């Protein structure tokens, strides 16, 4: 495997809607799925200084068609984006969808097949089509969301035999981490609290985040002056001991988009970022062998992305690792080499993972605060990395905009996907 992009490729524009709930979030309430997706695509096209007429192909990702009921999304969106007669495909790589789409676009551009590709991800994990209405939606129960989502997980054996994402992704990994590094359960709990506090702080500084409330404000709203007492209260139960509810994903409706093109086609006045490399590696359950913190497919996806990009991990100034499970995200960051092995909880306690720390991560709030709209989420992570690299991240801007960034996502279950971006 050559593991190379034969020509340079840039992300010329990015777009992302607010993540939230189509029934109640102010910026989203009343939108159709078509309009939700088109809003993200329009922002990406305008960011690139292009219109859909400049696009050769449209790759649209949607993972949970049970709630969207919108297969063949590329053609169904064509009149909402202002362009038809393009090449199109509907695809999914679950929660890695948009970044796998970026990798597919990069391959298409580097090969010479297309010059410019629009990638769109759209997902509704909070709401579904109501009856057979073309525009009305209704809430999805927790159980239904996971039953539909788990259709991407081993349906022959694991799901029918009692598999639970929170046990496998959180509780068992947490215990493996504590045993491996001699961390007490109490210290683990405190470290998870600090990480959640950082992610909530980031969400509070991100206008497009699903939750924009600091952990301190949330605690106060429930009558607690000590946020750690709130953390350990009935409001934050164990969902898979020793992992608690606030160390998990928050579901959301949302859409994201990006435009990839050749560097020589970039419009003047725009701010492209180079798409330097990617790595994709998947594995069915179990995702790990004896050591729950050691995920072989993640190591492979990161190694492939690093090799293709030629970027030294030491030069990465911004990292997002998939954080449906906060402890898993830290294990990945340690494996990458962004954090010293066994020290992630210390980094969280010392504030080093904050936007103003020396190892900034997930400055949009990650899957807990920004929220998780499966197929759209990787695009939201890339959107944030691009803002940080451009120096346009507002109140959460990293003081020195990073010249290289890495975005790692887990497509359920499991597609380890890593992309590396660098200043163009």
């Amino acid at each position, binding site marked *: 495997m050559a593991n190379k992009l034969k020509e340079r490729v840039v992300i010329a524009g990015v777009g992302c809607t607010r993540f939230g709930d189509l029934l109640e979030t102010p910026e989203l309430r009343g939108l159709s799925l078509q309009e939700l997706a088109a809003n993200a695509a329009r922002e990406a096209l305008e960011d690139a200084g292009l219109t859909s007429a400049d696009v050769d192909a449209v790759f649209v990702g949607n993972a949970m068609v049970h709630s969207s009921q919108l297969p063949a999304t590329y053609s169904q969106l064509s009149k909402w984006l202002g362009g038809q007669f393009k090449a199109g495909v509907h695809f999914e790589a679950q929660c890695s969808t948009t970044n796998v789409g970026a990798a597919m676009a990069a391959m298409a551009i580097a090969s010479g097949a297309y010059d410019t590709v629009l990638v769109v991800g759209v997902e509704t994990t909070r709401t579904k089509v109501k009856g057979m209405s073309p525009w009305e939606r209704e809430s999805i129960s927790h159980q239904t969301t996971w039953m539909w989502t788990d259709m991407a997980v081993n349906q022959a054996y694991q799901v029918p035999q009692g598999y639970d994402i929170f046990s496998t992704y959180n509780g068992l990994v947490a215990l493996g981490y504590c045993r491996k590094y001699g961390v007490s359960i109490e210290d683990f709990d405190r470290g998870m609290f600090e990480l959640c506090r950082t992610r909530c702080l980031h969400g509070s500084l991100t206008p497009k985040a699903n939750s924009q409330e600091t952990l301190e404000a949330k605690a106060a709203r429930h009558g607690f002056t000590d946020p750690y007492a709130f953390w350990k209260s009935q409001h934050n139960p164990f969902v898979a001991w020793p992992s608690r509810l606030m160390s998990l994903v928050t579901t959301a409706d949302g859409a994201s988009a990006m435009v990839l093109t050749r560097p020589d086609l970039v419009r003047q006045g725009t701010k492209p970022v180079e798409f330097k490399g990617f790595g994709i590696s998947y594995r069915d359950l179990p995702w790990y062998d*004896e050591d729950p913190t050691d995920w072989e497919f993640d190591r492979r996806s990161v190694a492939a992305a690093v090799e293709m990009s030629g970027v030294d991990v030491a030069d990465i100034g911004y990292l997002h690792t998939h954080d449906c499970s906060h402890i898993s995200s830290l294990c990945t960051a340690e494996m990458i080499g962004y954090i010293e092995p066994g020290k992630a909880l210390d980094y969280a306690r010392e504030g080093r993972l904050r936007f103003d720390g020396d190892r900034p991560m997930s400055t949009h709030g990650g899957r807990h605060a920004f929220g998780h709209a499966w197929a759209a989420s990787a695009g939201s992570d890339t959107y944030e990395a691009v803002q940080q690299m451009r120096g346009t991240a507002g109140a959460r801007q990293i003081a020195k905009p990073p010249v290289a960034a890495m975005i790692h996502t887990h497509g359920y279950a499991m597609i380890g996907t890593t992309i590396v971006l660098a200043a163009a």
Partner: protein
Amino acid sequence: MDTAVLQDSAIRTFYEALGEGRLEGRRCRKCGKITFPPTNCCEHCGSFDVEWTTLSGKGTLLFATHNITPACHPRFEPIAPYVYGHIRLDEGVIVQAIVRGIEATPEALEAVYDKGPIPVKAAVMEMPDLPVLVFEPVG
């Protein structure tokens, strides 16, 4: 239609054997490794030259946590919360499954964690629509 010959299916064979209390996997004739639960080829080397093998059901519980309530799948709603374990079978295969005989409470799970790996054996939990592989502590 129902007179057509029933084709072999690894999934059907697994569940029928489980219903009779046996753990059926497949051993690769090429590399010797076990694929469990069974598929139609070797998950390790990709060879389709595989044969059925019965596993002992003996293993070691490495870590134990519990699931969320309500359960993610309606089948398991009546028994949630339940303990879910990370298990190494004596044959070397890693399995994750429901564990019976341990309470799904932080206190009980912390006691198991403090104790370290413990021996377990396979059992079958009969759900209304499906036999489910579970493990129980030995002794």
